[in-house]
């Protein structure tokens, strides 16, 4: 478990981080909480030549209300999301997802920006961000652009972020006082999801349902959402959970079992709304 050699730069500002990214091209990685990057480096799945540590950029750690949006800085830790009063009031689904991540050590170090940028198909926060109609704000050499969460995840641990871009903000649609549910099925109490579901009720009976562990990327359960919008009862709609999904078939779980879990968990989530 020994990583390859690398050099280390601590960024003093967002601008400096961007400049370092531009300078080193594909050989560079941003370091936030390090709880996905460092294990990957130790397993030598990635061998970046340069790490640019953005961990001290406190200006990227915040939760604010901006009209009907909750805006979250990328360096906000999972632990903060669990406890933040604004999150609890306006996007409690995010707190529910954060609470189920790993163990306290992981939650104290891991950040929402790192989790989303890492784009693991089973990342808990990804499901919540998708269900909260999240928009991810990327900043690169040519300025700032908005990426809807539904377009952000492009494949297994790949995202729409360019190599020279920094994720600088996550914007979520407030869901104050509305029902929500986060259901996670993992092999061990403290473990990655085999399958997970985030469900967020919206006015007029529209419900957002997002899935993790059900394909190469976190995704919205379109068939379930459409059925619910058309007035199909929740119990029947949840049977459509795996429609259009291509879950992994591996040592953790077979594709068929994952599909079954998706139905069960969507059923549980909808019942809890």
């Amino acid at each position, binding site marked *: 478990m020994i990583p390859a050699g690398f050099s280390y730069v601590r960024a003093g500002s967002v601008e400096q981080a961007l400049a370092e990214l531009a300078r080193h091209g594909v050989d560079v990685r941003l370091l936030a909480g390090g709880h996905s990057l460092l294990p990957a480096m130790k397993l030598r799945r990635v061998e970046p030549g340069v790490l640019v540590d953005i961990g001290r950029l406190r200006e990227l750690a915040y939760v604010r209300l901006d009209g009907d949006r909750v805006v979250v800085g990328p360096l906000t830790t999972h632990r903060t999301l669990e406890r933040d009063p604004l999150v609890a009031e306006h996007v409690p689904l995010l707190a529910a997802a954060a609470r189920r991540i790993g163990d306290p050590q992981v939650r104290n170090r891991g950040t929402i920006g790192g989790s989303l940028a890492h784009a693991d198909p089973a990342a808990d926060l990804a499901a919540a961000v998708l269900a909260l109609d999240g928009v991810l704000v990327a900043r690169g050499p040519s300025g700032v652009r908005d990426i809807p969460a539904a377009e952000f995840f492009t494949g297994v641990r790949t995202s729409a972020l360019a190599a020279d871009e920094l994720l600088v903000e996550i914007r979520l649609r407030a869901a104050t006082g509305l029902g929500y549910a986060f259901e996670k*099925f993992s092999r061990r*109490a403290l473990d990655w999801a085999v399958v997970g579901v985030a469900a967020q009720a919206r006015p007029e009976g529209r419900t957002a349902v997002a899935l993790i562990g059900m394909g190469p990327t976190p995704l919205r359960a379109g068939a379930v959402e459409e059925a619910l919008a058309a007035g199909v009862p929740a119990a029947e709609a949840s049977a459509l959970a795996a429609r259009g999904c291509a879950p992994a078939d591996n040592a953790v779980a077979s594709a068929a079992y994952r599909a079954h879990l998706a139905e069960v968990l969507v059923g549980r989530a909808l019942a809890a709304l």
Partner: protein
Amino acid sequence: MIGSAVPRKEDAALLTGRGTFVDDIQRPGLLHMVYVQSTEAHALITGIDTSAATTLPGVVGVWTAEDFAELPARPSVPGLERHYLAGDKVHYVGEPVAVVVAADRYAAADAARAVEVTYEPLPVMATLEAALAPDAVPIFAPLPGNVALEQPVTPDGVAAELDAAPRRLRARLVNQRVAGAPLEPYGVLADWVGNGVTVWATVQAPHRVRAEIAQVFGLARHLVRVVAPDVGGAFGVKSSFMPELFLAPELSRRLGRPVKFVEARREHMTHTYHGRDQVQEVEVGFDENGVILALDVTITVNIGGVPDPVGIGLPTLTSYMLGGCYRIPKIAARYRSVLTNTTPTASYRGAGRPEASFLIERVVDLVALELGKDPAEVRKVNLIGPEQMPYQTPFEGIVYDEADYPAALELLLGELDYDALRAEQERRRADPGARLLGVGLSTFVEMAGFGPTPLFEQFGYLGGWESANLRLQPDGSVIVLVGTAPHGQGHQTAMAQIVADELGVPFEAVSVLYGDTAVVQEGIGTMGSRGMPVAGNAVRQAAVEVADQARRIAAHLLEADPDDLVRVGDGFQVKGVPDAAVPLAAVVERSFKPHLLPEGTRLGLESTAYYEPKNLSYPSGAHGCVVEVERDTGRVHVVRYVCVDDCGTVINPMTARGQVHGGVAQGIAQALYEKVSFDAEGRPLAASLEEYMLPGMLDLPRYETHHIETRSSFNPLGVKGIGEAGATAAPQAVVNAVVDALAHLGVRDVEMPCTPERVWKAMHHAS
């Protein structure tokens, strides 16, 4: 002190980070060694290019098999010698192919990756089926096939008894491969200075390791010093003779500098040997009451790519224990040890006996299911009674010591509130919204206290005894050197309790040392639950001898006859004369004053005792598990786990409980979570703790522990051992509970680990 739950002497250091593990040890000029591990499961090595690696900064050198051709083979099955590194072919992914030494671990790890090994692939046989198929190619030269050993354990079959039985059934049981996964992986630091070598290593038997190193290097044993410092868990996997135990000393010799090797977790998962991995074909004959009449068992054990001398024969121990706690008149057993392109297997907590207990306990439940009887009732009609002890099993030399198996079961059923659970189970079955409930029983017996010399020397040990040296210090405090090498069991504490009682000194006045061959007299080691039954009795014997010496000096001091003295407080007194008393400290002080002692008295109060057990010991008990099964996902929740253990005399209830907790945790882990698996190409699928499902604290229940103390007549302390009992008892308690929860659906078996998916499929297919 015996019987009191005093806190552990070990904990002050361990809990404040002041333990000393191999990786904590630094030496001047230390070099670091890592392996280049095979990436192929079965292939010819056609070339090894070390040129890029040797030019990297900090790299001292790269060595391959031919560089060690002069060294005699490491301890092996005779005729199936295994060397240190793969020579012309590799047998499994993870097998060491070359060794790199560099100035630091980072440079060494980079260099290992820069070594280019070219392979010519051979057909991979990663499973027993593939290895035994007619077109299988032989894996391990010089064997012509993949069956490394075929062993009839019993001379006769039981075909006639099975034919005569009113009922019979067959089962195929799988005891999957698991990893010991101690917190601290394997580590060795060797420092060859002058004409001798010091080796710090995470091992369970330092004297044996010393003997093997001395043998390989042609050294006299006094020139080899092996130190097992604090060892962070071993579970049997640190009793195998890994190549680094010899390569580190050899490289230190060649380089004139100390060399350290410490596995990374990923290396550990493929390099250090695994355990279990048996397939068992069983046929049992029984009558309408569930009385078992005959048992026929064929075991196939997967020993991996290179035969280990212990791993190859473990099913012998499985065979001996097949009868469990039951009066089974006729047992026939045979086994095959089969090579596959996987990491070798050898000892893991229980080493062969848990596989037997699993088998017979599953069989009893299958018999109950077949007859529509309660599994508790079927156990009751078969259990050996206390009046039959010591009980001669159908296997020669396997004689169970005193125990009350029916009493343990009764206590368990009471603690479980068994009848109420059965009623609740019925209620749940009728309520589609409720989780299913299952109750599993495991009345078990295992073999411990290894174990008389004639048996234990077959495993390559000098003897089956254990040693203790006890010396009183001039102030009356005590230093004990014990020949075992514990790694979490708490010997400092338990041995001190024994000494305190036998010698009449305070527990605080006793220090127990071990693990250093330069300091400790010849010893055997810690494995096979032999700590208390063998070493504990050696310590007791040494204390008795020293107490006797002290009594004679006290008698001289008090001008009385030794037989007229009684022990009082911390000294001796003339019987009936309270004024004529002397404290122990004064006696010890006197023992160092030759001019004040009778002519010819040996100075000092000291004794070295070697205790040879008459027999093995047989810890037993009854464990019960209550599970809930989610109907829609198949997830199993262990809601209660109740243990009744009989380990004979309990020296320290707290440390005994700790052993039960740890063993049960590993047993539950085997039942529900863990499996070392490989794909068809022999690539490991569980080479990190992300993939290998080691359960965490939140996955495990609170344990309810109870003890029955039936003293063993086989040793003076009356102890039996407790280290492996939990791991022996638990897997089948859990699996029996899972199957019990699903029995009404027609489910007869669920293979371990009973993952949610497996359970869900079992329910699905059954209904």
